[in-house]
């Protein structure tokens, strides 16, 4: 667990964030009041199964949910600007202010590097377009220098050749590293990495993770690392949030959660991690994660939980706080 350049000031605080997607019958809640906080230079990991709201959370933080598809129904997202010390409420600023935050303060890299580049334009054009958003007047020379430096820091060389190529001429790993360089072009302080390695081979995953760690230190980034893979998260995250059915079920420092999980879901997740050299089948969690929208009363994990009793099905457990840790379970008070 890495402690690179920690300082205690918060850079991003999200409170009771909820979001829902429209469907023909009723709106489907994808996030049901999630709190997260991110300190300067810190890396937090967001873990959860598919459908738990991880990616929605990433989109919500940048207000990127398409108006036709869904809406952000509540909560506050506060970003602390460095220069002025001003607090910007991302959830209520207008579109042109928002565009100044996107890319410049908070950047995002997505799952699939193949689809995050436009196949018909060269790489350089991607960088150039991103750069001119935040720099109205610039010299081509300065941009080239800056891009070369960034490409160098993600181990893509020679810059000249890379920039003159089309996206399909690269492998997935190279493209994912290029997308990191692109995300960092305007010097953001927060990088949201939404399953950055899930579409890559395992050997390439390792390289991408190394690059990410390296960038974190070099540019003093605060990172929100989203993944379903607890092993990957444990490699980079200082603190972890476990999401289940659109809610945080447990949060706290990574080392403590791994050593001593409190919520039954976290416990089951950790048990189900395959161990090197272990014999026998992999332990899985019985049942399936609830479909968003099908969540009933009470604790959403209760139907799959081996400790659950009547109370768990009736009432939603309030979070239990203990130092830096928090979990929501009646059985572990």
């Amino acid at each position, binding site marked *: 667990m890495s402690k690179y350049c920690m300082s205690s000031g918060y850079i991003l605080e999200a409170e009771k964030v909820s979001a829902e997607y429209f469907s023909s019958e009723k709106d489907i809640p994808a996030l049901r009041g999630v709190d997260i906080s991110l300190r300067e230079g810190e890396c937090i990991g967001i873990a959860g199964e598919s459908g738990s709201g991880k990616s929605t959370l990433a989109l919500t933080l*940048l207000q*990127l949910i398409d108006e036709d598809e869904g809406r952000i129904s509540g909560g506050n997202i506060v970003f602390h600007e460095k220069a002025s010390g001003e607090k910007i409420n991302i959830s209520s600023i207008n579109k042109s202010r928002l565009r*100044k935050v996107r890319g410049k303060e908070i*950047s995002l890299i997505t799952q*699939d590097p193949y689809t*995050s580049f*436009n196949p018909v*334009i060269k790489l350089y054009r991607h960088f150039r377009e991103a750069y001119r958003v935040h720099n109205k007047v610039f010299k081509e020379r300065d941009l080239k220098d800056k891009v070369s430096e960034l490409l160098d820091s993600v181990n893509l060389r020679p810059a000249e050749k890379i920039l003159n190529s089309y996206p399909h001429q690269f492998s997935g790993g190279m493209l994912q590293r290029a997308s990191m360089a*692109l995300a960092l072009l305007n010097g953001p302080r927060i990088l949201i990495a939404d399953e950055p390695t899930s579409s890559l081979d395992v050997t390439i995953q390792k390289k991408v993770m190394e690059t990410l760690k390296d960038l974190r230190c070099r540019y003093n980034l605060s990172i929100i690392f989203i993944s379903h893979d607890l092993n990957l998260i444990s490699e980079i995250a200082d603190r972890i949030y476990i999401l289940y059915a659109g809610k945080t079920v447990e949060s706290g420092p990574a080392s403590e959660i791994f050593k001593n999980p409190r919520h039954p879901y976290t416990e089951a997740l950790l048990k189900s991690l395959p161990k090197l050299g272990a014999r026998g089948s992999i332990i899985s969690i019985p049942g399936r994660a609830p479909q968003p929208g099908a969540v009933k009363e009470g604790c959403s994990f209760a139907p799959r939980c081996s400790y659950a009793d009547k109370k768990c099905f009736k009432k939603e457990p309030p979070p239990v706080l203990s130092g830096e840790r928090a979990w929501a379970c009646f059985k572990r008070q």
Partner: protein
Amino acid sequence: MNNLLKNKMVLSGLLIVFFFIFISILGPHIYRHSPVEQNISHRLQAPSARYIMGTDDLGRDVLARVIAGSRISLSVGFVSVGIALLIGVPLGLIAGFYGKGADRVIMRIVDIMLCFPTIFLILMVIAFLGPSIYNVMIVIGLTSWPGLTRYVRAETLSVRRREYIQAAEIMGIKKARILFIHILPNTIAPVIISAALGVGSAILAESILSFLGLGVQPPHPSWGNILTLGKEYISHNTWWLLVFPGTAILMTVVAFNLIGEGLRDVLDPRQRKER
């Protein structure tokens, strides 16, 4: 580009089109006979060494008139498709990208345009504006954009949800800019295809209008109005007045259709046939 030239349809289409472009530009300088000079004593002569394609009712040289007509046909084809592109592409982009009200309004206009027979629309406008070659170009352009708008809109709708559009939004790029740099280049393939097909049908439309006496006015030559004469003297067995301009129309239209179809095979892999 190499793929394009390897495609036999595109290659043969291009050869024919270049042949006609060459004729329309250099033809009058090589074959130095006036297309309008009359010679009544030589009227309605069958093709001979002196008049390779024969003469018409006023003794004008049909070959000279076909050459001069090629210039008109090609320029009508290109200009009217140019006009259609200028109207159709932006409307399609707007309808597909912004959706909602804009989409509804634009697509209803397209539907209305499409349910009128084009030739009827053209006739109506020409009746108001008067027949002239410029009016023909404008009118054909103004009536042939709806199909293009549909293509562009469909392509825009499919590109709009791709992740790189979202990636651009993440970088803070404005919507209008995204439309211009990310979506427009992706719609180019269907646009080029339908533009090539459009040139062919514009040339045909011009010929029809001139044939009906609503396009190019005599004494200026056009493939369409040479055919008109051929129809009038058909009882005199003047086959050369029909065959030569008719072949010219057929060849250019087929050539542009070959290019269009060939381009579709090369540019649009979804419709590519296995060979």
